[in-house]
């Protein structure tokens, strides 16, 4: 995960002493990045002030009516805020508890639990939402049926509520909170906790009086970051919001763009409003990271040591296993069962089992070509992306090129733009750019590369910054050529980081939905939007089969890659 790598910022502009070639290289890189990222947003801005025919571009009638109309969407804006705050609170609370247990205590099965907690990241929020709609629908959910049988009370759980949406978002998009907080806790000097214990404080008192204050800056950073992520969330709100007549900004944008005549102007204005909030939130996050002196990270070398929790460690392990059960085992089991039903029902005497759904799914374009396309795109974007992003990281953090700070800023910019909004911007842009890429896999590849740049650059920058320049300088002094230095020093040291970045970009590509949903064409279907389409038209049981096929394909690909590259991770 990339978010823990808080690289120091490069200066925005440092022209003194730069050669013409360096200036040209900088300008070229900056222009390409601006072209990929800022140019589509210009189209979005233009669309937001279009008050005439929504399909006219450039707009003929200009005004601010679409922004004034935002007041009509006040409920949608409030809904979005509510869900984002609730999901952030749950994700942070769970992330903190799990991170503390797995990094600061001697809980048994730590390594296995850490791996299992990563699985929701592979499952995707869409699959999670589908699974939880099967589990906790008020009348037909498996859990409610169980409660009726055991307790005799019906409709106890209702996933089609704002809380239900937030719950699924926290479970499947909140993994990042666990990763960020874990990173902070791992970098904390344990001697501070030990001092507290030596002076007689109990374990809980140490947790609240020492650990919590020490990780507070990192925790605040995680809160702000996760909140921004939750604001742009789409899949869970789509699957679980519609049955409850509950719309957030992303699902309202989706509805506006699906209608005819399409309300691109309103969707763009709503998207820009969300972008504004997200941009402000992430700017605040960046400001905190730049300004923050993390008291937890001392210059002194230390050995991370775990607190001996005695017999309580089994209770703590149970908490972790409960999370794994709720976020991994239960959803997968529900999807598997539903995918084998002739029609989705929890009434046992109506259940009729079949493998027909898998057979049907494999005849659909949505699975056959879409899954192949997704895997091809994942491999292509990850392979090219890692190379290009490594060059960008080198420019930003290792070169003396002027304006490298500006390049960093532009590269990280897509993080502030909700995926749905960026997808809409890319749709408008690529439909109107006179290069016939719309409707091809190429446009999806470019879009994925663009939106995944922050992820790749963050991951790689963490690795690059850990490698001391003096290693290369030593070799240079000893007479090694640049190529020899790269082959014998830089590449071997970077390899685990490059593989990790490749894997992250691959998974993020295969599960991508926000931009794909707008850019997918008849010959360029990809799996996540295809599952959304299936969910809306093909029935729960068939969609469950498709979700299982997608999940299995991603997990298999990840396992295959990990086994092939296992040797590169040794000692990393």
């Amino acid at each position, binding site marked *: 995960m990339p978010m823990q790598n808080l690289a120091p910022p490069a200066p925005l502009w440092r022209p003194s002493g730069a050669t013409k070639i360096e200036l040209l290289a900088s300008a070229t890189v900056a222009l390409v990045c601006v072209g990929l990222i800022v140019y589509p947003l210009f189209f979005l801005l233009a669309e937001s002030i279009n008050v005439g025919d929504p399909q006219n571009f450039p707009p003929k009638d200009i005004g601010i009516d679409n922004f004034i109309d935002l007041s*009509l969407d006040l409920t949608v804006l409030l809904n979005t805020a509510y869900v984002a705050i609730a999901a952030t609170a749950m994700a942070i609370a769970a992330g903190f508890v799990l991170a503390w247990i797995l990094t600061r205590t001697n809980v048994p099965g730590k390594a296995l639990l850490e791996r299992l907690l990563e699985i929701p990241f592979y499952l995707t929020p869409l699959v999670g939402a589908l699974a939880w709609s099967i589990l906790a629908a008020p009348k037909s959910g498996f859990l409610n049926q169980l409660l009726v049988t055991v307790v005799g009370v019906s409709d106890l759980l209702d996933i089609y509520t704002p809380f239900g949406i937030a719950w699924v978002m926290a479970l499947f998009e909140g993994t990042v909170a666990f990763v960020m907080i874990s990173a902070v806790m791992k970098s904390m000097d344990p001697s501070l906790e030990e001092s507290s214990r030596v002076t007689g404080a109990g374990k809980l008192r140490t947790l609240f009086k020492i650990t919590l204050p020490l990780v507070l800056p990192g925790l605040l950073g995680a809160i702000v970051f996760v909140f921004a992520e939750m604001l742009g969330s789409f899949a869970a709100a789509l699957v679980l919001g519609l049955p409850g007549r509950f719309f957030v900004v992303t699902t309202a944008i989706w509805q506006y763009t699906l*209608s*005819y005549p*399409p309300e691109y102007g309103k969707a763009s204005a709503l998207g820009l409003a969300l972008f504004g909030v997200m941009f402000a939130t992430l700017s605040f996050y960046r400001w905190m990271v730049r300004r923050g002196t993390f008291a937890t990270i001392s210059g002194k070398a230390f050995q991370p040591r775990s607190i001996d929790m005695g017999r309580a460690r089994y209770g703590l392990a149970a908490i972790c296993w409960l999370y794994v059960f709720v976020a991994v085992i239960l959803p997968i089991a529900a999807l598997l069962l539903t995918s084998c039903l002739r029609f989705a029902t929890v009434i046992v005497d109506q259940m009729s089992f079949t493998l027909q759904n898998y057979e*049907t799914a494999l005849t659909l*374009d949505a699975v056959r070509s879409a899954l192949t396309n997704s895997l091809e795109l994942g491999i292509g974007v990850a392979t090219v992306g890692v190379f290009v992003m490594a060059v960008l990281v080198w420019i930003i953090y290792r070169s003396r090129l002027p304006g490298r700070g500006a390049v960093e800023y532009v590269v990280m910019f897509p993080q502030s733009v909700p995926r749905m909004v960026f997808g809409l911007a890319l749709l408008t842009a690529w439909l109107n750019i006179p290069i016939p890429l719309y409707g091809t896999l190429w446009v999806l590849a470019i879009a994925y590369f663009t939106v995944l740049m922050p992820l790749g650059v963050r991951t790689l920058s963490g690795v690059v910054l850990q490698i001391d320049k003096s290693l290369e300088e030593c070799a240079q002094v000893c007479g090694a050529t640049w190529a020899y230095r790269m082959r014998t020093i830089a590449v071997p040291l970077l390899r685990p980081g490059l593989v990790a970045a490749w894997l992250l970009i691959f998974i993020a590509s295969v599960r991508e939905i926000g931009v794909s949903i707008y850019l997918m064409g008849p010959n360029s279907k990809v799996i996540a939007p295809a599952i959304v389409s299936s969910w809306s038209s093909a029935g729960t049981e068939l969609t469950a089969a498709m979700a299982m096929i997608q999940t299995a394909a991603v997990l298999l690909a990840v396992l295959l890659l990990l086994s092939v590259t296992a040797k590169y991770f040794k000692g990393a």
Partner: protein
Amino acid sequence: MRQRILGLVGAASIFGLVAGNGQAQNAVCPSPNEVAGFRTCANIAKAEQEGKLVIYSTDVEQGQAKIVAAFSASFPKIKPTYVRALSASLYAKLQSERQAGQYLADLVNVDVVLANDFLKKNGYARYVSPQMAAFRSEFKSKPEGYFTWAQLAVAAIAYNPRLLAADQAPKAWGDILNPKYAGTMNVKSSNSGVQHFVWYTVREVMGKDFWKSLASQKPKAFDSYVQQYDRIVNGEDKIVIGAQYSGYLEFKAKGAPLDFIFPDQGVPASPQVWGVIDKAPNPEAARLFLDWFLSPIGQKVMQEALFLNSPRDDAVPPPGGVAASQHKLLFPSDWDGFLGSKREFNTEWDRITGLR
């Protein structure tokens, strides 16, 4: 059936007016070829040379997959692909692409309002399929060849008899306003052409405020009949309003507990309209598919895949169902009013279903 179809003469005049737009008038082929059991005017060698076919369709994914698989079985050298979405979404996508000069689709299937709009915008290429002789003139553009009604989605009310006893279920359109059904009903979203058709035709019978009154019943809106039926089968809802008869037949065939109500006031029969697109990248393959699809062979495949009624004169009922002619069908008496009501419908329906 002819006596029961209200307003089709009006429809014909509307289509006649808009079709006189200066496009090619002579696209009738005098001597069609018999191939694979149907007659076609398409150049098969050319169609196979094109080798591809892109269909934009509102039909559900699994049904569309069966249709293109059956076509491919007869013409293995042509590889059909499709994009599936609701009528409004599909048309918005198609129009955005065309506006930007991107021509990806060969054939399109949308609702009659959007088909009419597309015709006005010269979106269709004229091709008079030899199969069109089997469709009455009210079901075709004037002049014929731009679009044809190729499917009829009959829609009314369905419920789950395990959750609602027959004597407790609604019998007429007016019954759905009974407060005892509050919070138990679902409808389609405003992006659905069928829902727009139901809204307009039932409103003509029940009065202008009928649907507005439904808002207090808090119906939930979904994108397809599959979701609607899923929810009454699994007990989340009890009643589907604007329920597609085809969906009822499909779920019933799987053994789902369902009953269907045909209110005495009549049932809307929303046409699904097909036509070849102007500037289609694979025009011969599109013509060949249209001929096959409108033929008895294609219509049979369509009925088996989707359970929709066929508008052909010689149509048989869908599997397990009855012919459309057995019902009192509702069509708009004022086609002009219907064709111009899309925006009003969007706004009103979004309010009823809680988007605004």
